[in-house]
């Protein structure tokens, strides 16, 4: 099992607040790694640092052996790091198919090529369309291809945002709380999709999750983050056995939930 993403000693402070505190962990290729922890533990901040939305104040991040902590978001994306956000954030005025196609970079996007459209541009566009349709089939949205994204249910929009991040053929997909707001059926479909993508397409996942069923059932590794620091890391079984850790985490969650 090879490490695809290595986060080493990253820290992040906002004003006086230390959001991430010397966090280190690795995510392995063709595995699902879950990042768990109470709200405000710094999980989304870590995502933003890895994907380039926040500058890395200290520490390093290696992706497939290359340092990526200085990259801008679009550069990280082009290297093979896909990410979704807590809200699906689909493009409402585009169709489902258009949403996915916009995830593929093509020559036809450049003004000169767009103007003087040759066979090359048209062929590229056709290939992009075919690939997008294939991805839509994979996530189960192909029947909705011509519908406007705004007309989709929340669960469908979630799947659409995942499809959009997949179409560029990323090596790792980072998902921020993908199961929030999904009903039981859609939730099961999501887990099934992730497992399929790992086993068949050999993708890696790094997932921020609060839903323990999801975490324990599909993750190969779990990383527990509390107040910006990595408190424990291991297989789901190991984390669960480490009761004191789990209790501390759940205890904090219960306290937070009762507000």
């Amino acid at each position, binding site marked *: 099992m090879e490490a695809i993403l290595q986060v080493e000693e990253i820290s992040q402070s906002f004003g006086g607040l230390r959001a991430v505190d010397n966090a280190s962990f690795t995510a392995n290729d063709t595995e699902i790694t879950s990042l768990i922890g109470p709200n405000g533990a710094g999980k989304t901040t870590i995502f933003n640092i890895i994907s380039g939305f926040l500058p890395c104040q200290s520490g390093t991040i290696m992706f497939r052996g290359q340092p990526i902590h200085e990259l801008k978001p*679009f550069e990280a*994306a082009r290297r093979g790091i*896909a990410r979704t956000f807590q809200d699906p954030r689909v493009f409402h005025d585009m169709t489902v198919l258009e949403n996915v196609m*916009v995830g593929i970079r093509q020559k036809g996007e450049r003004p000169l090529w767009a103007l003087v459209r040759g066979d090359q541009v048209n062929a590229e566009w056709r290939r992009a369309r075919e690939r997008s349709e294939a991805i839509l089939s994979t996530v189960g949205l192909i029947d909705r291809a011509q519908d406007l994204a705004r007309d989709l249910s929340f669960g469908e929009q979630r799947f659409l945002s995942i499809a959009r*991040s997949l179409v560029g053929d990323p090596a790792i997909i980072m998902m921020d709380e993908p199961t929030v707001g999904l009903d039981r059926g859609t939730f099961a479909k999501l887990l099934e999709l992730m497992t399929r993508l790992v086993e068949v397409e050999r993708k890696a996942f790094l997932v921020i999750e609060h839903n323990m069923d999801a975490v324990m059932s599909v993750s190969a590794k779990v990383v527990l983050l509390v107040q910006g620091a990595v408190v424990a890391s291991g297989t789901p079984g190991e984390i669960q056995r480490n009761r004191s850790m789990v209790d501390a985490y759940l205890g904090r969650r219960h306290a937070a939930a009762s507000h």
Partner: protein
Amino acid sequence: MDYTLHLVVIVLIYASLVVSLDLLIGHTGILSFGHAAFYGIGAYATAALTVYAGWDWFSAMIAAAAITAAIAALVGIPTLRLGGDYFILAMFGFQLIVITLILNLEPITNGPFGIRNVPRPSIGSFQIQSGLGMALFVAAVTGIIFLVHWRFASSPMKAMLHAIRDDEAVAMSLGIDVVRTKILVFAIGAGFAALSGSLMAFYFRFVTANSFVLATIILLWAMLFVGGSCSIAGAIVGPAILVLFPELFRFVGGEGLDIPNIQEALYGLLLVLVMIFRPQGLVGRRAA
């Protein structure tokens, strides 16, 4: 007949401006208040190159567009990476600075007097003299501008620009170099505005700063939103309505009426009403 032709030319020139403004605002979400300034820079560059430097119309037009695009890129680099509101303000400032420079750099621009006697375009040895000839020339260039924008809007470029407009962060996470694209589109839009400026210079044979003031950019915005953004048809409908409708006042009102201010009041009111009741404009595809 002559006056009707004149109105058609005016509508066409504005339409060519609105369609390039639509590329910026409607498709990419760049709320540019600098479009009139780029129109002005293009017009003045064309006039200066043909009148003072004796260039031919075609080279002057291309050079003016290139100069304007370069200026736009320079202005865009520091300002486009800031948030929308900062950018709007920066463009207001830019527009004001351009007017002030035009009025004060007398050696180049002849100050408030403007540049006169811009030569008419010629094809070979035949120089366009008549109103009809100029109207056809303007129509031809406007047609080309529209064609280019239509090509853009039916290409993968359109979807990418819409992604930037709708959610920059998501666009970045999909591998789109948002900053570079915005600067590029901004420069292209400015270049086309400069072409419209050249048309204006050739048609009126006279350029003056008065044509590129803040009221002009507000008029352009009104034309864009009344016609409807993200729409080729809207780029014609908007100018047609806002140019032709006030003409009615000439028949009705007559003497003593402060037509320019009535027009301004109308443009302002229309903008507000359109935003409240029909934000997608008359034929547009998208609400602001």
